[in-house]
């Protein structure tokens, strides 16, 4: 294999492992797998292990961790990881009520694509997306890759308030806003699901490496699910 594999220091309390510089499912799968193995192996002094698109960061307490032990462990785990297939993770189904006031930018995405709003919805619901990484806010998953036909760029003027549950597109990425936050992505619909719910047994709907499908639901169904969610 001639793939990139570099370990760089990121200050005195973190290491950064780099794989090929591309947004790619197989490369991301290696990063996710390495991060998972490092978490399980519980190296002394390690505080957090974080995978992103093509990198893994290992945060440690410099007074507790043995840096050379950590480097050796990363190299050994990497050797184990390379032959593994892309993790066959669970499929998460996300119901979405598209358009109208719950998806105020659907029309704009349709104009970008030169097609009808229904066509945009058909294309958005036709793909299975991969969660490449989480960031921006607790539970916010960067998913891809969005079909190039509907890959509308970010809005020129970000909104100061995007409602929680908003389903959005930004270029070849799609995601769900877990909290009401500012945001510049194109809002095409809304889901009754909560990507982050601090009170749930598992507060996080999306995890790195997960597979996601969006499914169109009508407004009545959306409202019913919201009500059911509040009264389980």
């Amino acid at each position, binding site marked *: 294999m001639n793939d990139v594999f570099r370990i760089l220091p990121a*200050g*005195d309390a973190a290491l950064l492992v780099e794989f090929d510089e591309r947004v790619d499912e197989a490369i991301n799968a290696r990063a996710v797998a390495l991060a998972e193995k490092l978490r399980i192996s519980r190296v002394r002094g390690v505080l957090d292990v974080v995978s992103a698109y093509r990198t893994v960061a290992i945060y440690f307490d410099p007074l507790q961790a043995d840096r050379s032990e950590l480097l050796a462990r990363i190299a050994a785990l990497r050797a184990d990881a390379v032959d593994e297939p892309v993790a066959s993770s669970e499929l998460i189904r996300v119901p979405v009520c598209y358009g109208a006031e719950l998806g105020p930018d659907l029309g704009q995405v349709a104009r970008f694509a030169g097609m009808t709003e229904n066509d945009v919805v058909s294309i958005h619901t036709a793909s299975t997306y991969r969660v490449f*990484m989480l960031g921006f806010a*607790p539970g916010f998953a960067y998913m891809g890759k969005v079909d190039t036909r509907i890959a509308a760029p970010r809005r020129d003027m970000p909104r100061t308030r995007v409602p929680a549950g908003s389903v959005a597109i930004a270029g070849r990425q799609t995601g769900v806003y877990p909290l009401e936050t500012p945001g510049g992505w194109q809002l095409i619909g809304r889901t009754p699901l909560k990507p982050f719910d601090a009170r749930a047994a598992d507060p996080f709907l999306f*995890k790195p490496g997960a597979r996601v499908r969006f499914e169109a639901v009508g407004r009545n169904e959306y409202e019913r699910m919201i009500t059911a969610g509040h009264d389980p």
Partner: protein
Amino acid sequence: MNAGSIYVQRPGLLTTVQDLGRWGFQSLGVPVAGPMDPFAHCLANALVGNDRRAATLEITLVGPELEFDDERLVAVAGAKFDMTIGGAGVPSGCPFVVPAQSRLRFGPRQHGARAYLAVEGGIDVPLVLGSRSTHVPSAMGGHAGRALARADRLLLGPPHGSRTRLASRRIASASFDREPGRVRVLPGPQRDRFDDDAIDVIQSAPYVVASESDRMGFRLLGPALRHSRGAEIISEPTMMGSLQVPGAGQPLLLMADRQTTGGYPKIATAISADLGVAGQAAPGDAISFKLCTPGEALAALIAGERALLAIEG
């Protein structure tokens, strides 16, 4: 048994509950938060005999007025404020007793941006994902996910009752190695995405902390840095102390509340021992960056650890 509480008469400008941070959930997008000056947080806890992980109050620029309902040992470290209890001055650098039903009032600030107030027993807000730290942008942790407001009541952990032994604790300020406004850095991780002289440029003159700076990060004004291969990278994890450089070339120093990922190259990273030096900078203050070696970074951290251990006994 009622473990005691603090009633907020005046909240100050930005007073939040912080422990050592919410580690272990960054891969799920959860920011670490925690103290902007971790060392001062640990010092304050050490002075009242708390574990370092106990939650303190981080007090920013303008301090609060707090009423204690039971008698507590209290210590304040980091930024220096004039403090009074019932009009009488309070010593700094050592623990002091706040009598039951009395008010601790923060007055004028002498130096530093952030003070840490530790109470014996710690601030007892609920744990959220294993931490009591407040992250205001995501409304997580601390007291109701926000900064303190007038009429809040904070519960305290049980006092540990070893007060006579603690009364003699002092900060021996000569025993650790911090110089206001000087932040030592190590290069990288994207050192190779900048002009060859970029590390010299960041050391060539002090950077001023701009007014649009907060717990997420400091916008810095000073010598511009030039990218050699574009100003965007595929988003990757961020570190507290990362000097991230967007396209315009003015660096951003990422701090405690930073988002977990970022898409700009990072020229250098502040060393752990000097994070608190940065954390003590207020808007308008200058920060001078100085390249150091991994050995110096570790030595500085060990010096701080010795100072803490000397107090913890």
